[in-house]
């Protein structure tokens, strides 16, 4: 009897664990199956064309794909220097009294739902952009900035964790040679934690690519590529959030699923790169 329960328990755990792998495979399969109609209708044009006209049954995802790439790029552009600054501040500069409270509040801010960042952006940041650049105030630039602010806490926290892996004794050795704090940071801490820092930044990038709610409020959902980054635009998550409940034809749905599939593949590849190429070593060491 005990033996039977023992076996049952072992198999139950294994079954559930393997089921998770199957679930992921299932997600990809379902997304792909529902994309087939759009793939058959548009082929590679889906990725290359930016004409998105539901009334004409014409769907090109280029504007959304490019919008995802550009908004994420802008977000990284704004967030990376600040996040590294915060991480350096927290791991090397801040006095002990500040380190822990500021560090913990940054971590807690990372837990605030992205929909709230989006809401803040809509009510408090859009007017500022409107005052500076004119126009509606919503668009690629606004989305990039809100996205940057949203990923900042996560990015700063993981970058700080990576920097904190540098052994004290290594830093002390540099100080013992007459190095300044900045010398130690640039010559010892950053080179030592390089893989971890890059991995953390890419991980944050992976999150930014798939982020929906922080940008949906402020992007505008206009399927047009504009050279003016203050003009309304769209991205894959924004398109999905706005149009999934409006789609009325099979081809429309299928096109949205194809966008979802592209987004899933993009974030899967980015996160896998961060995890397996850069963060593997740090994980093993722990």
């Amino acid at each position: 009897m005990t033996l039977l329960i023992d076996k049952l328990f072992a198999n139950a755990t294994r079954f559930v664990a393997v089921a998770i792998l199957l679930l992921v495979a299932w997600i990809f399969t379902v997304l792909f199956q529902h994309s087939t109609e759009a793939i058959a209708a548009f082929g590679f044009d889906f990725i290359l064309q930016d004409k998105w006209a539901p009334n004409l049954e014409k769907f090109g995802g280029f504007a959304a794909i490019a919008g995802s790439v550009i908004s994420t790029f802008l977000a990284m552009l704004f967030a990376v220097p600040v996040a590294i600054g915060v991480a350096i501040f927290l791991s090397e500069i801040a006095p002990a009294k500040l380190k822990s409270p500021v560090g913990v509040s940054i971590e807690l801010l990372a837990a605030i739902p992205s929909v709230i960042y989006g809401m803040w952006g809509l009510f408090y940041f859009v007017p500022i952009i409107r005052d500076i650049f004119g126009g509606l105030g919503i668009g690629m630039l606004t989305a990039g900035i809100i996205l940057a602010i949203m990923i900042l806490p996560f990015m700063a926290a993981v970058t700080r964790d990576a920097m904190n892996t540098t052994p004290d004794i290594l830093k002390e050795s540099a100080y013992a040679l007459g190095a300044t704090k900045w010398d130690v940071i640039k010559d010892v801490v950053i080179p030592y934690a390089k893989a971890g820092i890059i991995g953390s930044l890419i991980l944050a990038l992976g999150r930014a690519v798939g982020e929906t709610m922080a940008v949906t409020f402020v992007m505008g959902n206009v399927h047009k590529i504009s050279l003016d980054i203050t003009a309304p635009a769209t991205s894959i998550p924004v398109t999905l959030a706005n149009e999934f409940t409006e789609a009325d034809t099979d081809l429309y749905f299928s096109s949205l699923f194809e966008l979802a599939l592209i987004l899933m593949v993009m974030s899967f590849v980015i996160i896998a790169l961060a995890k397996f190429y850069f963060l593997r070593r740090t994980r093993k060491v722990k």
Partner: protein
Amino acid sequence: MATVIDIPSEKAIEVNNFSFTYAGASSPNLKNISMPIAKNAVTALIGPSGCGKTTLLRSFNRMHDLYPGNRYDGKIVFEGRNIVESKEDLINLRIKIGMIFQKPTAFPMSIFDNIAYGMRLQGLKNKTELADRVEKALRDAAIWDEVKERLRHDANGLSGGQQQRLCIARAIAVEPDVLLFDEPTSALDPISTRGIEKLVMELRDRVTIIIVTHNMQQAARVSDYTGFMYLGELIELNKTDEMFVTPAEKLTQEYISGKFG
């Protein structure tokens, strides 16, 4: 009550009524220590764990300043001034007083860059001079032959003993007057330990060396003078030959005969 002999030769450092308190400690962790450090000789600091020998060592290059709230009282006189005063220029002090740590601390860069690091910090840019001085430092640290073919390789590829000699080379490359060794062989195998000890004895002609060690035999092998510390106080400073044969203090006698520690 402590026995501190006078040193006939020239003194590199004089510790005078020096106390040290760690941040948050209610009473001093080092109490009223006075001792001379002989120039171009090896002074060993021994004593049981927690006796304060490493704390004292780290006061000579003000390593404690990296962490807030620590307090120095009294004097450590080096080059005629009290170096534990807050106005002391720590960068120049640390250039003159180098340090070797418990574990090898190769920086995440090439062997060459590791050795050149301290010189570059001082602004040395001339490539041939850098290369010459790197070679000299590596030769002095008796590791040149092992690494000359792979100066551009990552220093972390070296063995533990090699890395520790690399760290010594890095420290002597900037030509310090004093070298602090903090249990430099505690992470090494016996053969590497021998190599480091030999190096310490070779360096003593040009550099003042203070070495903290857990190992009494090591102190006896490499040092000219030995200080025995206990509970934050200096109990005895004596010639090494005499300390291990006829110690002046009863406590020293008990420690070196293995009654505690």
